[in-house]
């Protein structure tokens, strides 16, 4: 079950134009379509459900406020939403710098909890993916979530993260290799223990 929202650009722009004119149905449609991906993106970076919920909610309130003002997004609604979500996450971690590591401690599953079945080991691997992801630098986590989890294009990802396309290309390469290494180390640790 992969969450892919392939962008339908003309429809998205039309929806955005209607929303700018205050069309209530268009606003609600934006909410219904874009809340799940935005929440997924935030929640995979933020452990606390309440914080994630607040952030996602805030993103869409911001949109309503922006549409009223002069800095309303003119196009690329999805990119705009992810950019605001990303800023919220950065602010959150900027305030509580040590939260990442705290959360990680809770997240690491004790190996004794698990059955030795192979299927179960795969389950553990999946859980560790998330744990390993949290060990990456923020921008590496972002690029992997945007490119893999959200299936955004290279260009969209570059726009959201405010970087050149070429920079994103290297970043995603480095990020995936770092993640692979961390996952590999987990595996070694687990085998030894």
């Amino acid at each position: 079950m992969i969450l892919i929202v392939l962008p339908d650009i003309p429809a998205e722009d039309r929806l955005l134009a209607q929303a700018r004119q205050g069309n209530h149905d268009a606003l609600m449609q934006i909410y219904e379509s874009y809340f799940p991906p935005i929440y997924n993106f935030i929640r995979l970076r933020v452990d606390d459900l309440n914080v994630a919920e607040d952030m996602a909610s805030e993103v869409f309130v911001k949109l309503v406020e922006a549409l009223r003002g002069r800095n309303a997004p003119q196009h690329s609604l999805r990119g705009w939403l992810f950019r605001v979500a990303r800023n919220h996450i950065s602010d959150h971690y900027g305030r509580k710098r040590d939260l990442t590591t705290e959360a990680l401690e809770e997240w690491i599953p004790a190996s004794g909890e698990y059955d030795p079945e192979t299927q179960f080991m795969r389950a553990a691997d999946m859980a560790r993916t998330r744990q390993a992801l949290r060990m990456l630098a923020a921008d590496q986590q972002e690029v992997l979530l945007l490119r893999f989890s959200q299936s955004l294009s290279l260009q969209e990802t570059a726009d959201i993260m405010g970087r050149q396309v070429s920079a994103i290309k290297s970043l995603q390469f480095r990020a995936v290799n770092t993640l692979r290494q961390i996952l590999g180390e987990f595996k070694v640790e687990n085998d030894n223990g």
Partner: protein
Amino acid sequence: MAEQDLLNAFNDCIDRLAAGQSIDECLRRYPQFAAALRTMLETGQQVRAMRVSPVEVAQVQERARYRFEEAVRMTAPRRKPAYPVYHLASLAAAILLISVVILGGAGVMAQASLPGDPLYGVKLFTEKIQVAFDPNLATQFDQRRIDETQQLINTGRTEDVSFRGEVAFVDATHWTVASLRVTISPDTRGAAAVHDGDIVEVQATTTSMGEIIANSVIVLVEKPPTPTPLPTHVPTAFPVTARPTATDTPTITSTPSITPTPSPSLTGTPTAIPTITYTPSPSSTAAPTLTLTPSATACIPTAPAGWVSYQVQPGDSLSRLATSRNITLNQLMAVNCLVDPGFIVAGEELYLPAVQQIGTTPQPTSEGSDNNTNLNDNASDNSGGGDNNSGSGSSNSNDNNDNGDDHGGHGSDG
């Protein structure tokens, strides 16, 4: 250079995977990088497999919707009006306020005023606004101009007037416009262009002798050239006279309301999630959660015979649940449409075989219907720890046990 090629190949494969291709398909395009690409793409696919429980997404979306709608409501009045008539509506409201509140009876006096009276301008302005709402009123106001002119003549006042109507030639210097007898002089501008039967606007001056001296005439509608007159083309059949006024002061209350009432058409039903719980039969009640994630696959969790719904507790793991019910993890995941065995959230509903033998850990034996009302509470109480597959430290284990006891209590209630 080779590294740059690898970067590009990796990027290309990410896009192809997103479009639904398999890793192998993409590797065939880049055989020289196959080994490196495979590990990287497999790692990437693990990231893709991570997801938040659809139940959690649906619950959060439902809760946050209220805040969103509130924000929409708050900002709605400041939206740019969709129709310029809204501007006129507020303008008209202001004008009416002035005429009614500040001027008191003057508003009514304005209605009765004639050309040259101090309040005549207010009357014309009010009419202009009313016409903006209801163009049909124009004919009614045209008739007023004629009536006003007639009143001026009757009282012998000298004023500049303006009115419209159909022309009927009487003689070289006299016409009838609507019901008024108009004197045309050599100084009257535009008179030469007028034909019998045209509809014209006349700018004129009334005299103390009861004459209406035309200063200028403008043809508004030419008489139709067809020999057979149109149904409307009857002498004195100009709409002004054909339609007597219904009311003297048309109200403005028919203006569209400015505050939009948000339609709740798109909101989901909050009861959709609890209904998943109690249907052990292979019904499709699980569908509502899927509709909220439009791009979700067609997999719909369906309980095989003998399976019941179970609410995930803090500390649960899929593998442990599978073992406790004597099924394989694969079975458990297939029935519940799960792709990521490491990511379940407390409060999530799963289908499990009915309990025959309880595992080593204390678990609620069954989920009574009462428990479902606690679904939201459980999810938020256990926030942060909800997706924890286990407690690592001793304090965590204690917490989990406490929770387990709590839920056990609920279970026995139900």
